[in-house]
């Protein structure tokens, strides 16, 4: 049976998922070697049980993010923080510098009801244990491919050269 792969998108720009798609023809190979069971790229509504690898893009910014990542952690064997938002908080965490509520000033029409945002945006590993970190804004398609293949082959990925930023 093929290992079950999931990808999730918390507070990020989807750039990491774009980089994932940037694997080009290697996607066909990855798609035959993994079973993609949950992702913004497919139509599954509920995060399934018994997932082997989950790639998480984005920081944990809201109560909903927090609930999602806890559920995902409980159902995933190898959790991978994909990209700077998941690994460091990155851009979403810039609002941590501001007093509560002040970040809303960037909106012309701020929401009138309470925003269910956490006081501090957190990297994924500050909230749940993470097995692997892949920094980058976004990580290169090569690095993402290497992580996916290394996990299949049961070895440590060689992602030297992966760095914060771009």
């Amino acid at each position, binding site marked *: 049976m093929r290992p079950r792969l999931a990808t999730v998108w918390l507070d990020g720009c989807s750039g990491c998922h774009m980089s994932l798609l940037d694997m080009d023809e290697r996607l066909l190979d990855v798609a035959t070697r993994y079973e993609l069971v949950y992702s913004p790229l497919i139509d599954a509504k509920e995060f399934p049980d018994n997932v082997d690898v989950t790639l998480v893009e984005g920081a944990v910014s809201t109560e909903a993010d927090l609930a999602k990542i806890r559920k995902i952690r409980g159902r995933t064997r190898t959790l991978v*923080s994909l990209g*700077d938002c998941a*690994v*460091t*908080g*990155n*851009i979403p*965490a*810039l609002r*941590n*510098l*501001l007093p509560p509520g002040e970040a809303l000033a960037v909106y012309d029409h701020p929401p009138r009801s309470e925003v269910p945002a956490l006081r*501090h945006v957190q*990297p994924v*590993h*500050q909230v749940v244990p*993470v097995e692997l*970190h*892949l*920094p980058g*804004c976004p990580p290169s398609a090569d690095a993402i491919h290497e992580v996916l293949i290394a996990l299949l082959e049961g070895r440590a990925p060689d*992602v*030297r*050269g*992966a*760095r*914060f*930023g*771009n």
Partner: protein
Amino acid sequence: MSVCTLFVDGREVSAGAGETLLEVLRENGIDVPTLCNLEGLSAVGACRMCLVAVKGQGRLMPACTTRVWDHMEVTTHDERLDRYRRGVLELLFAERNHVCSVCVASGHCELQSLAAQLGMDHVRFDYLHPPLAVDASHPRFAIDHNRCILCTRCVRVCDEIEGAHTWDVAGRGVKAWVVTDLAEPWGESSTCTSCGKCVQVCPTGSLFVKGHAVGEMEKRTAFLPYLARRRKGTP
């Protein structure tokens, strides 16, 4: 000049008495990471990246400020030293707001590239997220305190090479920061000559030339050893 014999990672190396350990390591092509050190400036041992183990010493020693002695036995790389170096980088990243993805120096930053080189792929500590200022009052340059690692290269180059001593460090501990004159806006400094040396030696995106977007600020430090020699009166 008398000569010392050292053993570095089991290898025999000779050095002139009075040389620093870092100088000797560099002369012999032995790589030790550094951040605050820069050829042409005095060594201050601020960043702790070049810590090495010296046999018989009860503590780790910064290679940049340690003078060699005869029969010194040095370890430059082992699991513990690499772990400590990664730990130092993690603390630097946690202490201020180093957001590489939107930094002018991304791709040309010594902090960013050292993290990649040493495999520091996440920070275990809570980020402090201090609300720090950007001083853009100077017509050509700006300082973003969010990116400063307090290496004091700017302070040293301004004092030792330019001779202006516009920069200095104010405050203590986690509240320390670099200031121009008596913590006045850079643009109002009466001592700054606007030479830009501080900008060029800054290892991160903290000091930059205005008008650069993300990843565009490349630093040039090649002038420094030459100027340092000229200041000492040697060609």
